[in-house]
């Protein structure tokens, strides 16, 4: 076991014991942190690994949340049964909406994905299908029920989110050493070279979007259950910008970096709530300063290093 893995394991163990000494307000912050870090990792698959400038991720997060909310409150599905649609619907929507624009170059894709997010919000607010509850959103989402037990305490929510983060980390690790991960690595470095080596850039980028959207949807479902309510402003462009910034401030394609980014961008503003009005001013200054001092993020992946799975047998 390497040193990094030891540190990671240590951090995970500490995080697993947080419910034993945190009060319920902080535990709620902790749960939301876990959910947001899952979204940040899913954003990182698209932005950090596939290198697609994607600034509409809150839409997929919101699709998962709304899938759970609508199926539960309007159609009476139990929460457990809504988990699969909450993953599949964002995936399908991502494939349908992203495939016509996947060929766009960097900044154009960025603006087109902002557009997708804004369209999503307007569909919710104008209540296009009569099931989204308009600007107020949907209230009264059920808790998870299984084996005759209701998982409704903050501690239960925390551990559910913790398990989701564990699954996400496992997926990220598996991706790294899979054919998909290697293709991503190459595409991110140089997509034209990747294409000329026979890698189907379009296919792999869409693949990244589908996985990212599915994970974000799972996190969205968790988010809807935690707050037992969903409303459009939790998924607007500002949230997308936050996920985008988390990845870049933390360090794209770097697991500890993205976690650190989520702490910096999400937990610290919660801590400094007393400064209420001025905190976003400080926040903006911090974004500028971080980028000037650490242009590749606080905890960057070492670029230029050949990953170990490519080095086998070449020593």
């Amino acid at each position, binding site marked *: 076991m390497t040193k990094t893995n030891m540190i990671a394991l240590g951090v995970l163990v500490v995080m697993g014991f947080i419910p034993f000494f945190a009060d319920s307000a902080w535990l709620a912050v902790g749960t939301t942190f876990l959910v947001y870090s899952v979204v940040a990792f899913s954003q990182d698959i698209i932005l950090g690994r596939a290198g697609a400038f994607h600034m509409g991720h809150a839409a997929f997060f919101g699709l998962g949340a709304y899938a759970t909310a609508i199926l539960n409150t309007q159609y009476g599905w139990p929460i457990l049964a809504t988990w699969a649609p909450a993953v599949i619907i964002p995936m399908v929507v991502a494939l349908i909406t992203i495939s016509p624009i996947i060929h766009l170059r*960097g*900044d154009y894709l960025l603006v087109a994905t902002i557009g997708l997010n804004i369209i999503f919000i307007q569909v919710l607010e*104008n209540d296009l299908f009569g099931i989204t509850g308009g600007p107020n959103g949907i209230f009264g989402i059920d808790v998870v029920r299984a084996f005759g037990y209701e998982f409704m305490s903050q501690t239960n929510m925390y551990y559910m989110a913790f398990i989701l983060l564990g699954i996400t980390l496992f997926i990220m690790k598996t991706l790294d050493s899979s054919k998909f991960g290697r293709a991503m690595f190459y595409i991110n470095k140089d997509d*034209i070279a990747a294409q000329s080596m026979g890698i189907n850039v379009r296919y792999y980028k869409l693949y990244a979007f589908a996985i990212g959207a599915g994970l974000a949807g799972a996190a969205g479902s968790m988010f809807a259950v935690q707050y037992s309510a969903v409303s459009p402003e939790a998924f607007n462009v500002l949230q997308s*910008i936050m996920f985008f910034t988390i990845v870049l401030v933390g360090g794209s394609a770097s697991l500890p970096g993205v976690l650190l980014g989520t702490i910096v961008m999400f937990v610290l503003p919660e801590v400094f709530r007393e400064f209420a009005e001025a905190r976003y001013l400080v926040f903006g200054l911090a974004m500028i300063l971080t980028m000037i001092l650490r242009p590749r993020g606080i905890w960057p992946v070492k670029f230029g290093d050949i990953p170990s799975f490519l080095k086998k047998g070449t020593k």
Partner: protein
Amino acid sequence: MDIFLQQLVNGLTIGSLYALVALGYTMVYGVMKLINFAHGDLVALSSFVGLTVYTNMFADGGTSIVAVITVFMFTAAIIAVVGVLLERLAYRPLRTAPRLSAVVSALGAGLVIQNSIMLIWGPNMKIFPSDLFPSTIWDINGVVITFTQVMILGTSSILMIALYLFINRTKMGTAIRAVAIDQDAAKLMGINVNKIVMIIFVIGSALGAVAGLFIGIYYRGITFDMGWTYGLSAFVAAIIGGIGNIPGAMFGGLMLGLFNALISGYISSAWAETFTFMLLIIVLIFRPTGILGEKTAEKV
């Protein structure tokens, strides 16, 4: 037909404001390949600065041509200085960094400007005085045109023509175009790239300031977070026209303004942004670099 003509007038008015803001985006993008996300907030800042300048200097004396011109010049100068500072502090240190780092820095700068406005002028909507321009109205066969609209159309046309001539007919304009094509080569030809970037920010911010003042005068109500809305529309306009291309930004702005006005007039303003972005996506599917954008292969 009357609705159509009326929306045509309204659309051209809004469109020329979009075009003025879009020019700021497109010039910065052309030279630095950076989406200046803080530009919209500079526009909002100019509305507030203009309001303060006006109420402090001319509130009692009534309006005169001199007063209005002074307000415009003064505000444009202040916003130009802020724009140059923005470039110095937030963008210049990142010129050689990965491109997305500069995008995050721009987003941060936008947040700083927006929240500074909120801390200085408060979070509530401010109302612009209505007496900057005379309230003359022309009614041509049921189509209403206000004095403000004429002023907006006139001023923005003059500014756009002046900018076009400046970029295409002067030595400085040639230098700007050279830097946009290849910074290193321009440097070797003895062009001071830092100075050119500064000029870009002066012009872009000043044009944005004029647009911001007109937004205040035309819509009356201004809020600290309005920069994001106008900025995004103007940025979409710049992309539809072909970003980096100055006539493209003008064309894109007017086109988007007309499109928005017709959507609001015939369908519903609640869906305006959805249609805006659908238009953008459709344009990008068929013309990936915008309508007037040049088809350039990415450098390998």
